[in-house]
């Protein structure tokens, strides 16, 4: 096991850029970091470690800037007390050189020994099964657990399975919408990937501070049409390139009922805002985007403020509509936990 302390304060960006990303300063300042002042990044010795960590670094840099800029702006306006003053140091990086299956004892000791730390972790599926057990043994709290897969053969020509399963798939279980990662990931993937799905299950449908920043934070996700299941207000679906019924089927939801616009009016497709993002902030790969989204969830940057038990994003464009990226098959698991 290797422990690295790195300065993750790279690529600082301006408050204006943050707003362009849909991250209001005040929301950031009040983000869920709350009482947690330490973060850790656990890398499980997988091929995706570096890309995932890069995404985590980007999200950390954004949040640090937000706090920095937000604090300064508020101080100038005489509103210091209204801005969160909780700072946290760059994540302590721990790399499991031999993988968790070989270093499970060290990981168990790490979880037992480090209290009050929010860990972001990435590992293979075998390690993830053990990690979940170690976590429960030590009484750690599970905030977010993700399973991520890209299968190159993906969506088509599958004799026994469903035809329209996206090739890039993410399934997250989060403690509550407060720790949603789906919106952040959907925004990152939409410009670059033809076929993806993101499913989020929230164990508790309520956000602890739901409604406070709802209008500012939960703008419609650019490029998606948003629906809720009629009669079941806490099931939400965001589709791009396919109907709600097809989107529902492609994520394997067996929902009976009609999908209606989420906000009570006909959804409008806002593709323009997805394209207008500053080029330098586009992440280059899907794994990096997952790291980014996971860290935003760990910090609480992109909380979903609407009561929700399940939501999904689905993008499915016909082959040939966009150039297909060169992506290698990969599967891994991600975590946000608190010791």
């Amino acid at each position: 096991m290797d422990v690295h302390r790195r300065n993750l304060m790279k690529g600082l960006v301006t408050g204006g850029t943050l707003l362009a990303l849909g991250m209001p300063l005040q929301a950031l300042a009040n983000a869920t970091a709350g009482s947690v002042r330490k973060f850790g990044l656990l890398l499980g010795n997988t091929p995706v470690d570096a890309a995932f960590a890069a995404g985590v670094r980007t999200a950390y840099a954004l949040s640090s800037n937000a706090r920095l800029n937000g604090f300064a702006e508020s101080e100038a306006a005489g509103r210091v007390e209204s801005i969160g003053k909780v700072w946290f140091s760059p994540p302590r990086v721990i790399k499991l050189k031999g993988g968790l299956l070989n270093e499970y004892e060290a990981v168990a000791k790490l979880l037992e020994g480090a209290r009050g730390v929010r860990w972001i972790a990435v590992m293979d599926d075998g390690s993830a099964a053990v990690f979940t057990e170690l976590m429960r043994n030590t009484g750690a709290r599970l905030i977010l657990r993700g399973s991520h897969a890209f299968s190159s053969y993906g969506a088509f020509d599958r004799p026994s399975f469903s035809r329209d399963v996206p090739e890039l798939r993410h399934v997250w279980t989060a403690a509550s919408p407060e720790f949603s990662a789906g919106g952040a990931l959907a925004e990152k993937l939409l410009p670059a990937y033809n076929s993806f799905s993101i499913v989020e299950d929230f164990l508790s449908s309520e956000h602890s501070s739901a409604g406070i920043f709802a209008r500012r934070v939960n703008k419609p996700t650019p490029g998606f049409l948003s629906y809720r299941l009629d009669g079941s207000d806490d099931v939400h679906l965001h589709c791009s390139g396919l109907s709600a019924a097809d989107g529902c089927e492609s994520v394997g939801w067996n929902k009976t009922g009609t999908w209606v616009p989420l906000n009570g009016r006909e959804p409008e497709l806002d593709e323009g805002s997805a394209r207008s993002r500053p080029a330098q902030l586009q992440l280059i790969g899907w794994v990096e985007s997952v790291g980014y989204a996971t860290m935003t969830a760990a910090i609480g940057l992109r909380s979903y403020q609407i009561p929700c038990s399940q939501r999904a994003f689905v993008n499915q464009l016909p082959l040939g509509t966009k150039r297909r990226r060169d992506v290698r098959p990969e599967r891994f698991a991600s975590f946000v936990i608190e010791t």
Partner: protein
Amino acid sequence: MPNRYIALPKGISEKTFDSAIADFRNVLGDAAVLTSAQQLAPYIKTMMPVPDSDHTPSAALMATTVEEIQKIVGICNRYKVPIWTISTGKNLGYGSAAPVERGQVVLDLKRMNRILEVDKDLAYALVEPGVTYKQLYDYIAEHKLGLWLSMPAPSAIAGPVGNTLDRGVGYTPYGEHFLFACGMEVVLANGEVLRTGMGSMPNSNTWQVFKWGYGPYLDGIFTQSNYGIVTKFGFWLMPAPPAFKPFVIQYENEEDIVEIVEIIRPLRINGVIPNAVVIAHALYEAPVKARRSDYVTGPGSIPDAAVRKLAKDHHLGIWNVYAALYGTQEQIDLNWKIVTQAFSKSGKAKILTEREVGDDPAFKYRASLMRGDMTLQEFSLYNWRGGGGSMWFAPVSQARGSETLKQMALTKEILAKYGLDYSGEFIVGMRDMHHIVDVLYDKTDPGQVKAAYQCFDELLTTFSAQGYGTYRVNTAFMDKVAETYGPVQRQVHKTLKKALDPNGILAPGKSGIR
């Protein structure tokens, strides 16, 4: 969805549950009663092809004493709140720590982790349910007791109580774990404490050495059941042998399993090979060495040609027979001669020992398991397909070559129909074999989830129709398997349940018993 809880027990109002939780807190303290989503999330993850929400607990309780458990069952009876008891909760692939039904309260006994006694001379242990194999392993090493454990593949993180109560197996000569269980303490649903066998007699010192006691033998009804909460558990340990010789015998064709089993059976029954031999298919061993995507990227199950190439590339047989000899060097030398002679006759077997393959990762972890050492390498299986889906399909077979080939072919055929791979092994008992198949699938792919569910259902249906019973199953299919054993057995189980737990508070649904 309720406001204060992420789930509620079936038929229990939030108000009633509030009262039960308040009473639990009075007994255990606030910190030992978990109700928040973040605290309960680690109890929910299952690997089954059904929504985790079907198995979401309403709360988790951390008891540390028998007296606390007695009070807990009293509260459960008062409010009709069902509990799902786990020791360490490592039943991976069979449901993990999650309850069989949504809303059940998990009673987590991990903090009851005292090693009460380990007797070096009589070679037994008496432990509480939260004791892990690793804890016991360290205790034995620290006290230089010269005893070996037998443990399942999740060795270090699992514990002997839960594994034995679910009738799990290990890989040493003590591999059929329940065979070596001796004496239990059980909290019954009415709060009474039963000690089985000789334990019922005051001042007895034979609780952990004589199983049977007097009258009907009761220990069995507390395994794979929901008739009581086991709070102490005795079992026998193997004296460390003076010498140990692990080996692997490789065969190149699937049909060779007939020869393998016909050779092994007499060696097992006669005690020449004393341990629970494993006959592992190449795809069961491959994940510690290879990635599936290096051999196949298209849809469907992996083709035989790819399996052959993989086996060749990574020095695996299509079948890999892992066994070991134990005893004095003289015993081992003699038995080794018998083993090599038996397997050399046809010329098909490739016999390898530590000298040739000691550094091979598959051999290393198998050898560790056969000597009762800690290893978690078998979890590499979950990387084979990826995506976190796994169900153990576990039919029992006669230790007869023709039967094993038939079961293997039938399993493979059904798996292939759903695009899934045959990752199987046979664990050889004295006269039976546990046919263990890890049905691996990608839980992120709803198509595979659906296929895996249908596939598992068809495996159970087809096998039971041919008279092949499943010895253990995950919580999503417990009712179905219980059904395959016929109405009379099911009714007897229910009658016992009604007599011992009239309010149905102990894990209703476990093994299909309510």
